[in-house]
């Protein structure tokens, strides 16, 4: 019988701890998803979200926490990335898209994190409540990439 699995992780607001989230995700998904390219993209989306908290919500200041909940269902993966810093503009999130270098010049040096998240995940939402900001993301796991339990 397949059941939903949940894990909650907390890291300090330091860039050198973000990789730990990626490693934990890899460990959680390695038996579920065989495609290493898909695993990389999911790790990338999660890490970009955590970096966004550290860089923008906390302005790169240490001493805060980033809390990540990973929910793994039979055919879906959900991330909830939470911080207690400055809120993100929902408009900025929903308008985020990756620049096309062939169309848009000059090429931007930075600012691709939210666009990558939007490109990788199937659904993204953002809310703020009781001092916590929450970036929620969902990805459908394709059947051929899901191993039987």
């Amino acid at each position, binding site marked *: 019988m397949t059941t939903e699995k949940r894990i909650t992780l907390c890291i300090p607001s330091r*860039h*050198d701890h*973000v*990789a730990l989230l*990626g490693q934990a995700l890899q460990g959680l998904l390695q038996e579920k998803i065989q495609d*290493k*390219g898909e695993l*990389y*993209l999911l*790790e*990338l989306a999660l*890490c*970009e979200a955590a*970096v966004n908290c*550290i*860089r923008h919500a906390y302005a790169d200041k240490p001493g805060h926490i980033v809390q990540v909940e990973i929910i793994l269902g039979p055919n879906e993966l959900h991330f909830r990335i939470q911080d207690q810093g400055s809120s993100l503009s929902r408009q900025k999130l929903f308008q985020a898209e*990756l*620049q*096309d*270098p*062939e169309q848009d010049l000059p*090429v*931007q*040096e*930075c*600012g*691709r*994190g939210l*666009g*990558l998240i939007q*490109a*990788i995940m199937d659904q993204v939402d953002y809310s703020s409540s009781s001092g916590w900001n929450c970036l929620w993301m969902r990805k459908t796991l394709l059947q051929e990439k899901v191993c039987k339990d």
Partner: protein
Amino acid sequence: MQIQSENVGQVLVLRLLNSRLDSATAHDFKGKMVDFVLQGHLYLALDLSQVEFMDSSGLSALLSTIKTMQGRGRLVVFGVGRNVAQLFSLTRLDRGVIEIHPDQETALQALNPAD
């Protein structure tokens, strides 16, 4: 951030020895790359074969290096693994912004056309 360097003709071949180029390492990487450019190395071939994970911060560091060259030189990359190739493709930076070669030989040929 560990970068091994080797002069081959007019080209400085740089081997990135870390497996991650991300928000934790990109600042240091960018500083080292800009230093190479400011030292007068304007033809850089960057070996990314050890890099298994790159994020948008790593991309920014590469683009900053290219910008520092201000059109006076060239940065090409080679040894790009599947993950990094996916990132370049997703961001469309593989379409004329970041010059990608399959191996060191072709990267050097591109930067040393007389060879």
